[in-house]
């Protein structure tokens, strides 16, 4: 009995000492006034599952930001070139406190430039990136999120993940299009709704992504209207929204520069709010954030990985 009491006491002490889990929430003030409706930490209040939660940190546009830029350019040289030019213009305009790391997604995720506040090495790597290979956004996303989230957990900086892609669902190495194999089969209904494999992949990624906390932004350079690509593009939109970021789809070349600029503007205005989870056992988190300075846009649902 004494041994049991001792064990319970040890366990209770260990639990009491274990640090509380922190939720790193991407947030934007909705106001676009001169100071961007920028809230102070004291102005913010948070609730997790309806219960008050402590805000432990607020990082805003004045703090350092690490932008992980992933290029997934495989199809159209001219669109890719426009995107590169737009990125060059936007990178040069970024504040000095924004550090940019560059990766490529086609044929597997690979680092092209380590994060740096110097723009030229990143620009050099972007210019030198070939437009070739197979699309890689869907396959590379879990690794990119894992990389970004580990940084988010390690350092008190803002982190954002931005994909610039021209991918078509038809240009993946994996099979999401379920091509006809037996042309003599005239009563095949399984391809009447061809988006099944895309939807399944997106659902899987969304489930995985729910455990990550880095906001995801996607700029797609080439919107396509066929049923499979529509399902794919909607899926990308879904993923970006689920992670608290956003997506833009360009229907013409003229939209590319504006789409890249829009994504960059949003990234630069990103806030990071660290919220302490009151109950460690909760794996599905419903978050409410409020600010005295005005309405906020933030990610309000998280699914934490089981410990």
């Amino acid at each position, binding site marked *: 009995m004494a041994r049991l009491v001792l064990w319970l006491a040890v366990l209770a002490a260990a639990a009491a000492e274990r640090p509380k889990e922190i939720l790193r929430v991407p947030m934007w003030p909705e106001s676009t006034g001169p100071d961007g409706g920028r809230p102070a930490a004291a102005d913010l209040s948070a609730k997790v599952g309806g219960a008050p939660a402590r805000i432990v940190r607020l990082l805003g546009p004045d703090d350092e930001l690490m932008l992980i830029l992933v290029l997934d350019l495989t199809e159209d040289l001219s669109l890719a070139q426009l995107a590169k030019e737009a990125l060059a213009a936007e990178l040069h305009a970024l504040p000095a406190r924004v550090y940019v790391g560059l990766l490529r997604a086609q044929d597997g995720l690979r680092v092209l430039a380590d994060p740096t506040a110097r723009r030229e090495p990143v620009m050099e790597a972007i210019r030198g990136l070939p437009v070739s290979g197979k699309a890689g956004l869907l396959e590379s996303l879990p690794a990119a999120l894992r990389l970004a989230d580990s940084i988010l957990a390690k350092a008190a900086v803002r982190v954002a993940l931005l994909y610039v892609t021209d991918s078509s669902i038809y240009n993946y*190495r994996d099979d999401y299009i379920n091509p006809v194999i037996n042309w003599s*089969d005239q009563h*095949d209904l399984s391809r009447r709704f061809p988006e099944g*494999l895309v939807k399944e992949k*997106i659902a899987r990624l969304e489930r995985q992504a729910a455990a990550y906390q880095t906001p995801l932004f996607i700029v797609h350079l080439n919107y396509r209207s066929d*049923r499979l690509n529509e399902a794919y593009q909607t899926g990308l939109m879904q993923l970006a929204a689920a992670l608290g970021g956003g997506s833009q789809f360009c229907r013409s070349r003229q939209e590319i*520069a504006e789409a890249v600029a829009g994504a960059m503007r949003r990234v630069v205005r990103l806030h990071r709010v660290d919220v302490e989870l009151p109950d460690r056992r909760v794996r599905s988190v419903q978050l409410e954030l409020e600010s005295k300075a005005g309405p906020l846009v933030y990610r309000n649902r998280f*699914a934490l990985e089981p410990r």
Partner: protein
Amino acid sequence: MRSAICGLLGALVLGAQQPAAPPSEIQKAIEEFKTQSRLLGLREEAARRRSNGLRPKWHGRLFENLRNDYFDAVPHEVRQRGGTKSMLRRNQFGFNLAGPLVLPKLYDGARRTYFSLSYEGMREKIARSYLRTIPTLAERSGDWSETVDLAGNPLPIYDPLSTRPNPAFDPGRPVSLENLEYLREPFPANRLPAWRLDPVAKRALEYYPPPNASVGPFFRNNYFIHAPETNTADGVIGKLDHSLRERHRLSLNWSFSNGLQGPARWFPTPANPGGPDRRFRNRRGSLEHVFTVSPRTVHTAGFAASAGSTESGGEARGDFASELGLEGVGQVGFPYFRIQPYLSLGRAYPVSKSARNEFEWSWALASKQGRHSWRLSGRYERSQVNAFYPQYPAGMFRFGEGLTSLPGIVNTGHAFASFLLGLAEYSELSLVGSPSYFRAGSWGAALRHSWEASGRLTFHWGLSLDVWTPRVEKYDRQSTVDLDALNPANGRKGALIAAGRDGRGRTFQPVRVKPEPSAGFSWNPWGDARTVVRGSFARSYAGIPIYSSQWGTQGFNGTPTFISPNVQLEPAVRLADGLPPPARSLPDLRPEAANDTVADLVDRSRLQPVYQSASLSVEREAPGSVVLTIGAAYSGGRNLLVGNWAANPNAIPLEALRFRDQLNDEQFNRSLRPYPQFKGFDVSSSWPLGRYHRDAGFLRLEKRASRGLTLSAYYEFSKQLDDYSGPYGRQDYFNRRNEWSLTAYNRPHRFSFSCVYELPLGPNKTLLGYTDWRRHLADGWSLSAISSFTSGEPIALRPQFNNTGGVVDTLNVNVVPGVSPRVARPGPELWFNPEAFVQPPDFSIGNASRTHPFLRNPSSQNHDLSLTKRFALVRDRTLEFSAVGLNFLNHADWEDPDTLIGPAEAPNVNAGKIIGSRGGRIIQLGVRFSF
């Protein structure tokens, strides 16, 4: 000075002894980036080592789709015939496996080599239904006493043996009941004596099944076919993708598929007129090399090869001609007896085999320089078609009503009565000694250029140059009629010539070289990126295809043809006599060898199908991810390839109709033709004569939402006119303007709607956000739907009789002035007013257009729904169940109305009416395990 130096040294020493300043947060972040990217194998140096980070693993799926009539609604057309079941058994199964190629201890292609392998198999039995007409049992015994015409009046059958000239005939007046050219007695009591029935016909009758329905009117629509198709298929697709260093990539794709299509048996006998069993074998492989010369220049080279073969009619082999006692024909398959309007016995092409091989080399160089993008490409294609396609190896015998009619009087006699008497009006036999080995090629070069004129405006244009080399036969076994060569039999132009002989080249057609321009723009007006205006124009040419038939080999293959001297008076052949043996052995390449046949005629002009299109659209993105597109499009074409239904270079001018009944005399009829030595020409869907024009306006609405919702709606209004499309053919070969009418398949209104919705249920979703065991039930539901509504095709009316002496192959109806073709409430009882139309008088053409300008067949609609439920399993595995409902509302579309218009004195009582409807809900259940 000393003190200063000491002070500095002291400061350095002290400084060195102080602890290092902690790294800043951003430094920590950078270090973490480097560490994690190394651990995850995202860096070059890490990638070269074996990385255990997120190394891709093999993944794939297993699936099964099941359909069974147990789940389905009984199709409306089956229920209307009293059926309670429509057999359906279908299993579709397969797998996919993909990932890096790893051969243990041999090869590790973790990042460089990727494979994907998919297999799919299918086993199916699916019932098909058709409503047709076959002879009644009484008619088969020669008893026509109960048989009536389409107006319900008794149909008299005349005895051809009683034919004699009418001494009172006045050649100055048209043939009529009051002025008969020939006298002929009806069979007593309208019954054919048993001894008069042809023995071959009597034996052939045993292959007709008995009638099994009485839909009517009268004895029509008395055979309901409800039999299963049997289909199987097995196929594999494999892909291998390999990166050679950074700038080279190789992609290898290959696939094969074997299948059997066993269509529904219309008759449970070897005389089945339905399609033959077909066995398919398809193979395809391609290799592509992509070389990224620089970030702005990419070079691509590829090679693709495909081989497909089809074998038909394995079930129909057998010497049925001997069983029937029919002599002089081949002993493969059932002889083909055409007995309109009844289902025939036997069919064309009872046994055939073909193979098609395609080889393509392609090359492209794409580059972007400043505001200009260029793409230069080239290709070469080579086609091989090997065909063994005897059309009538056991003979074709066509029966008409003429020989049992009162000569010159329509609505008398019957084709089946002529058959019972064994009196064929036309017969043909195919003698094919060897397969044909056709070869053709084409190559082309194309340049495309895109210029960003400003930030808001982009132009693009392209120019292709395509070269088509015409068809040759490997052993020069090709022939055609040369319309300029003199025929020694009659000294007229038009004689058979063979390729590669008498100084001729190996081909009959010229090499065709055509430039194909295209241009377009996209423009954001008023500097507004949310609005895009697009315009495009293109002009293109099509090559002359090689069909899988042995058309154009006459002389090497024989087509003995037997033609009635007068289809009302004398048969071409009597079944009991069979066909005489061929007069000459093959090959028979004499200039006159194709005389008295329907001769194969290859177009030797430089004409080639040309298509032109232009479009303009405005796309506007509205708030809420809604995109609205409105546009208009034009397309047109000329020199489109048409077949015998629309092109007849041996047609008789319509003025010849004034000769009236004299035209039934084959010799006189032929004398009026431009090439009288030929019965006709077979141009095999390769005569460049068609023209079309299409205008369309469309509206498209797309809505996407981040909650997993995609909605899309599309409406199109179009009008398409042409001078060649069916459904029955051209009335006037000489004046194409007269044939300019609505395209037979033009459906002016089309509306489609589709949606894909990931239901917001489950954890991290709006509704039912359970986190306990119930999340497995709530999560992973999605819904997809596709609906379509289309207006009907234009109605094509046709007269019941064509008494034009063979001058007009396809006759239009006459319009009755002052009578509206519309009815107040179109329905199955009456869809249109048949009294607005009438059979044209004998030896005159109809004045209505080929397709009606505003009457249309019933519209159709379809609604499909798919519901899926995904279960997330451990280690990123998924189990998905799906239910697909095709026509899930169980909606029935009306059949098309009867468009056969009879003469005013004996109208088709069924004209304008609709017999029943079609359609029924089909459910498919599926399960897929993904890993």
